Structures are given as structure tokens and as C-alpha cells.
């Protein structure tokens, strides 16, 4: 698969105008297509941004040009290999989601108990927070319910085929 060309974002004019470029950078990250890198141009080395981007699944390479401008290339972590096929309907950008704030081990529970536990836990999350659940099998009846409530999800089987891994990112509060 060919990688899309990096998206270029020059924040020098924004900084020159005395504005904070963080919103513009995050907006650019949100419009990246899967696998696409972000090429950032800044008047200084944006060290705090490296941590933020790392938490969203991006590695970074930086260098200073002769004119003093810093060039940073944020590259997304490689997509899962073919043996980690995502269940159809999974969000494309799950690799960029923040770390899970909740982890649930739901193996050994009969359906629909895993669905009840996950939906109850998701209801308590703030928008954008992520939950991780381990299940015996793909919860086919949960997926439409999550979508209906405005939450995103991504899931696949572990390599062994004996456990299913699910990430859910809470959308707007659904109460």
C-alpha cells in the first residue's frame, strides 16, 4: 500500500501573529487520513508537542534547517498487520486514540453480560476517553448499540484467536 504524502502545516505565521498554534496542529491531526504523516514547520523546536503526539500514536523526527526553521515529521505508528485484521466497522484512527482509562476483563462471561458491562462503563466516561475490554468473542450486538449512542470502537482478535480486544472511545455523553 502506498503511503499518502505528508500533510504540511506551517505554524510560523500563527506564532508571528502572537497566537497559540496548538489548536491548528490538533485540527490538522484530525484531518489526517490513515497512515498519513504531518510535516510541521515551526520557528523553534516544539518539544512539548512530541509527548502529545506520541500519546496519539505518532513518532517524530526533527531537524533544524539552515534558515533556523525547525522541521518535524510526525509519522503514525504502522497499521496492524494482516493477521490482526480489524472487525469491519472499526474506527480507522484507533491507533491515534489516547490510552485507555478503563480496562475490563470480560472473558468467561456469557452474552449479553459483556455488552452490559461495557455500555455501563462507557456511560461513565468523559467524551474522548477510551476503554479497553478483553472478551471471548466479537460482541456483534454491541457494535450497533455503540454506534447508535455516538461512541466509536475498534476491535480485533488477539494473535492466538482465543481473545477479542476492543477499544471504545466515548462520544458525547449519552444520558
Amino acid at each position, binding site marked *: 500500500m502506498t503511503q499518502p504524502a505528508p500533510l504540511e502545516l506551517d505554524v510560523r505565521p500563527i506564532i508571528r501573529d502572537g497566537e497559540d498554534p496548538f489548536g491548528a496542529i490538533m485540527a490538522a491531526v484530525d484531518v489526517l487520513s490513515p497512515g498519513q504523516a504531518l510535516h510541521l514547520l515551526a520557528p523553534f523546536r516544539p518539544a512539548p508537542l512530541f509527548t502529545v503526539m506520541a500519546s496519539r500514536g505518532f513518532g517524530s523526527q526533527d531537524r533544524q534547517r539552515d534558515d533556523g526553521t525547525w522541521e518535524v515529521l510526525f509519522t503514525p505508528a504502522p497499521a496492524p498487520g494482516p493477521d490482526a*485484521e480489524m*472487525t*469491519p*466497522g472499526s474506527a480507522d484512527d484507533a491507533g491515534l486514540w489516547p490510552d485507555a482509562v478503563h480496562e475490563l476483563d470480560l472473558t*468467561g462471561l*456469557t*452474552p*449479553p453480560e459483556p*455488552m*452490559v458491562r461495557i*455500555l*455501563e462503563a*462507557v*456511560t*461513565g466516561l468523559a467524551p474522548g476517553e477510551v476503554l479497553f475490554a478483553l472478551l*471471548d*468473542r*466479537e460482541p*456483534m*450486538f454491541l*457494535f*450497533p*448499540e455503540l*454506534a*447508535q*449512542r*455516538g*461512541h*466509536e470502537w475498534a476491535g480485533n482478535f488477539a494473535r492466538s*484467536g*482465543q481473545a477479542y480486544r476492543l477499544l471504545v472511545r466515548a*462520544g*458525547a455523553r*449519552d*444520558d
Partner: protein
Amino acid sequence: MAGKHLSRWTLVWFGSAMAMLLAGCALGLLGAADPQGWSQGSNLAVVHLFVLGWLCQVMLGALIQFVPVLAARPLAFPGLALPALVATSTGTLALALGFLALDGHQALQPLFLLAPVLIGLGFALVAVMVTATLWHRDSLHLAEVRMVLLALAALVGLWLSGGRMVLALAGLGPAPDLSAMLPLHLLLGIAGWLGLAACGVTYKLFAMFLLAPEQGGRLRGAIFWTAAGLVALLLAALLWLLAGGSAGRATALALALLPLLALLALLYLTEIAQLWKARRRPALEPNMLWSRAALAFLALAAALAIPGWLWGGTWAETAVFVALVGWLSTLTLAQLLKIVGFLTWIQVFAPRIGHQPVPMVQKLGSTRAASACLALWCAGTLAGALSLLGASPAGYRLAMALLSLGALGVGRELIAVRQLAHLPPAERPGQLPHLMLPLLHPRPRAETRS
């Protein structure tokens, strides 16, 4: 976004199948399924109400609901479910009425000829949905998925042989040897289509309800390849016969396959026994407890297939009866009670999770009621099998009564489940789901993110 929770028409498929089952049982009770005269039109009508109207329709509806779970992908062409249902149900009624033309009601002859067209259309529409959903490299490596696709291949043969027999009975076209066509029709229908579809689905369903590991090992692969060889030989024999080949050879081949079929049943039962032993759920619900009775009937049918092969006659009839009424119907009735409860729970309570307490799914059904009617059904099967072997009309009538009572009980329990009648009033929502029709209006909280 993945598909909806329920295939919209699943419960109407089940309802239509249950109506045909009750009609078949009632007519059987009235004496319209007389073992002494299977070739009479009225008997063939009742047999087809039972096999096509009940077993085939419930299997088609279950596949539409279940293949997305089997393949972990949304159902393809969900809009075809309703036309398929209309085609198969009207086709079944047309066929049942059309058989009466054989008893002298000539006015019904056009219905007899229309029936295979409608049934074929219904089968084809479901086959398109199921195949398009399952045909994916992630799914095709699963033996149970391939088994369901193999069942569809057998369904084509079932329809071809059935359609050809309708033409012959209606006096159209060169008459093939019906006594040679019938064994192929039976084997393609019972072992090929219904049997393999049931095996494929139960691997997943049993693993789910037993909390057993889902890995199909070498044994499952071996079962698939044996079944594939069997279906291929049956289809080849059918095509040979349709092309004007010798009836004797086709019959000889079909009958020679019977021991292989018994072996196949034994292998399947061995694998299910392994699954059962590996289960992590000690206490079982009625659907699984009574599925054991269904599996015992499969073993009995396989055992009866051997004397049926050697001596034919009532032994073969009894084997067919035990396979259809004992194995496939008991299995379906037991699982239907569970599945309808589960789907109703999802429909009513899934939107409420996280916002208010929801009852356990088990509380939607009554273990006692389910076990009582399934016990009646199994007793009816045993009485039927014994009366067929002993040529006892009184015993057969008793069997029909027991089966009718069992089927009525299951029907009543299914309605109670849909109406949430077993839940305490405080746990029942204000608005009950419709008995069969899908929700035709969107849910109030239907906001979705793009």
C-alpha cells in the same frame, strides 16, 4: 457503522415457520399424515408444510440473523429478507395446496406449477444474502462457514430434484423414475441442506452458550471434507439422473452413501462431545439441556440409517422421521426459545443499559415452561418412531397429539417471551415490542457520529 441489531424480519420468519409447524401438527392430528399412504397428495402436503414451511423457513430465517455473527460482518443485501420470506411462505402454501391436485382437485394444478418458481426465488434470494456475507477470506478459512455454503449447494440440488418431481407429477415433461429421485431429494434435503446448515450454526452457537473454546481443529476440517464429498456425489447423481442417466445407478449411489452419512453424524457428535467437555459454564439452560436430546435423536437417526439402508421400508421411514422431528426440530425449538428471548432482550433492553437497571436475559423465559413443552415434543418423537416401527396407527395418533401439544406450548412460550410476560410488572417497559413486526420508527436517542 455495522448493521442493525436484528435483521428486521427475523421474527416474522420465525413466526411464519411456527405457523406452518402448528398447521402441520394440527393436520397430522386430524389424520392427514398417514404413514400408510405417503404418496397421497394430502400427505405430501402435510409433509411439505412441516419440512419446507417449518424446518426450511426457520433455518433460512436463522441464517439471515446468524451469518453476521458467524462471519463477524454485517449482513449483505438485508433488503432481500422480506421478498425472500414472501416468496418462500407463499411458495410453501402453493405447494401444499398444489399437492391436493394429485387427489383430484385439478383446479389447484396451476398452484402446483407456480410453487417451485416461488420457492426457488425465495431460496435464491437468501442464498445471495448468505453467500455475499460469508464469502470473504477472513471467513472462508472457518470450516463451519464453508459448511453453511455447502448446505446452500445442497439446497440447489434439493430444489432441482423437487422441481423436477413436481413437473413429473403434474404430467409435464418426460417422467424420471420418481423412486430414484426421491432418495436423492431426501438426502440432499435432510443431510445436505438442513443437516449441514444446522451443524455449521451449532458449532458457533454451542460454543457461545457453553462458553467453550471456538477452535475447530482437524476433526472439523475432516467433517467438512467428508460432507463436501458427500454433497458432490449426491449432486452428481442428481445431474446424472436429470440428464437421463440410469435410475438404478443413481439410487445405488445414493444408498451407498448412507453408511458414510452415519459416519459423518458420528464424527460431528464426537466433536460436539469434545466441545461439551471443554465448556466453562457448569449450569446449563433448557436450550442446551434439550439440545442434548436433539443430538441423541441424531445418533438414533444415524443408527436407524443402517437397517434403513439394508432393508428400507419402515426402517428408512423411521430414520427420516427421527432426523426431521427428533434431531432438527427439537434442536430448532430448543434454540428458538433462547434466541427469541435473546433478541427480545437486545431489542428492548440494550438501549437502556447504563441508564437504568436491566433484567437478566434469562428472566425473559420460563425454564419450567420451556422444559415441559420440549419434553412433550421429545416424547411425541419417541412415540412416533416406535409406532412407525410397530405399524401402530393408534400410537402414531398419540405421537401426533404429543407433538401438537409440545409445539403449541413452544408457541405459547414464545409469545410470552415477546410480551415480557415472565418479568415482574415493575421491570416491564411501558411499551412492549411488537410480537413479530420490526420497529418501524427510529429510536428517540438515535444520534450518530459521522
